[in-house]
């Protein structure tokens, strides 16, 4: 082939390049959009005798098939605590080159994990704010299809589950979310003739047009043990339970578990035949006034009450009060 490079018809100056805007082909991760027609036409110009003539070739075209690919990713970055209900967040990505919807299914009964959470609902982020909005985001029946997603488009899917009765504290559950291309899935290269965008063929890509990922829940439960003890000191320096003796009760609350107990209140009655000693109520050695006021405790002739609120971790509380035997 005789190729000449010395007959440039234009003086080339890089700095004088005119600014020409080309219609950009969208650059998708998965390539040219399905259904695109790639067309090629050549033109020849030549000198025939004294006249310059040109001739244009036929136009050949090939159509870009639809690649079916999908990716599923858990976005929680670790175990999600569950005490009553919890939300797991997954991202579905259309990694193919066509407009496609995906059947989305959930498996809460994955074998080999610590517990199987109760399924509540699946929803997708229909208002695109990145978080689950109960009553706003569109609920998906498990196995039903997502909205049609453009190439490279992401969709957040939320799996809401509840902690079943009998779950052991700190047990971990696997929750698996699966997405399948609605057009079809299977071995890479599987062809669905004429079922791609714009009448193109659809071809299963390297993802098998199916993907899944697992999110994890960790049960966060807690319980409170309360231990009560008493010490007696009688007016004669001994420890006999006789009239006039002072009885100091200790209530020790210990927390066990990895969750949180909320709105914990400890109350006790003043035993019959004794009289509460005003001003004797303490929490961890600090005095609490008897009146119902800014501090967490109150006491009266009939009993004491201390509001501790949320309780978690390795905390321990000691409440003491003193009565006199009548």
């Amino acid at each position: 082939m005789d190729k000449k490079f010395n007959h440039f018809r234009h003086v080339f100056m890089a700095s004088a390049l005119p600014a020409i805007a080309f219609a950009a082909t969208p650059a998708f991760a998965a390539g040219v959009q399905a259904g695109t027609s790639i067309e090629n036409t050549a033109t020849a110009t030549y000198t025939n005798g004294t006249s310059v003539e040109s001739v244009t070739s036929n136009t050949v075209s090939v159509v870009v098939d639809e690649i079916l690919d999908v990716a599923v990713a858990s976005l929680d970055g670790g175990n999600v605590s569950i005490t009553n209900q919890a939300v797991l967040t997954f991202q579905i990505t259309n990694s193919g080159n066509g407009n496609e919807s995906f059947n989305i299914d959930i498996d809460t009964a994955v074998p080999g994990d610590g517990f199987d959470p109760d399924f509540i609902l699946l929803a997708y982020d229909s208002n695109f704010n990145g978080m689950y909005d109960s009553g706003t985001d569109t609920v998906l029946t498990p196995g039903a299809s997502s909205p049609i997603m453009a190439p490279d488009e992401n969709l957040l899917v939320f799996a809401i589950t509840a902690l079943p009765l009998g779950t052991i504290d700190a047990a971990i559950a696997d929750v698996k979310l699966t997405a399948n291309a609605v057009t079809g899935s299977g071995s890479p290269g599987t062809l669905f003739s004429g079922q791609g965008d714009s009448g193109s063929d659809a071809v299963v890509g390297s993802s098998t047009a199916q993907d899944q990922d697992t999110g994890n829940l960790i049960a966060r439960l807690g319980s409170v043990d309360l231990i009560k003890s008493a010490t007696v000191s009688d007016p004669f320096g001994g420890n006999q339970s006789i009239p006039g003796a002072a009885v100091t009760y200790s209530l020790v609350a210990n927390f066990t578990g990895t969750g949180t107990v909320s709105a914990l209140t400890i109350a006790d009655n003043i035993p019959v035949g004794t009289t509460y000693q005003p001003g004797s109520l303490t929490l961890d050695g600090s005095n609490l006034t008897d009146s119902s006021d800014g501090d967490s405790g109150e006491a009266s002739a009939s009993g004491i009450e201390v509001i501790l609120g949320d309780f978690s971790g390795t905390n321990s509380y000691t409440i003491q009060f003193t009565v006199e035997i009548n």
Partner: protein
Amino acid sequence: MFRLKSFYGALAGFALVISAQPAVALAQDAKPVQIESKVFLVQTNESEQGKTENLVPATSVVPGDTLAFTTSFKNSGAEAVTDFVIVNPVPESVTLSPKSAAENEVSVDGGNSWGSLSALTIAADDDFSRPATAEDVTHIRWTFSTIPAGGTEEAAYFAAVK
């Protein structure tokens, strides 16, 4: 039909002028050179004997496929033609192969200016420019000084589907 014709009778002369045009076009088509474009899918087969590439007719492709676009031409006239230049816009959805880009005269500005790829640059903001790459090529062309009477040639380039 007849009623319509009589109704628009005043336009008959105008219609005659239009119908005369194809005859003019036919006369223009009597050119000595015919060119034909074809597209093939490049299939790579690896075996114990090594790697072989076959060109197979393509009607549909997927991103990543390599295509071969060919332009064959014949001078069927009685005289040689000279200064024969084939210009082929590279479709937007493909990227010219680095080899085809390096071996041919190309344009990165829609066919306004031409050169070897290594000599071309892409204008950027702030008066900076960068060297052009195969991905920037918008057009490719081949130049033949003379095609003798009866002479045939074929030009080809390879490109990958984006």
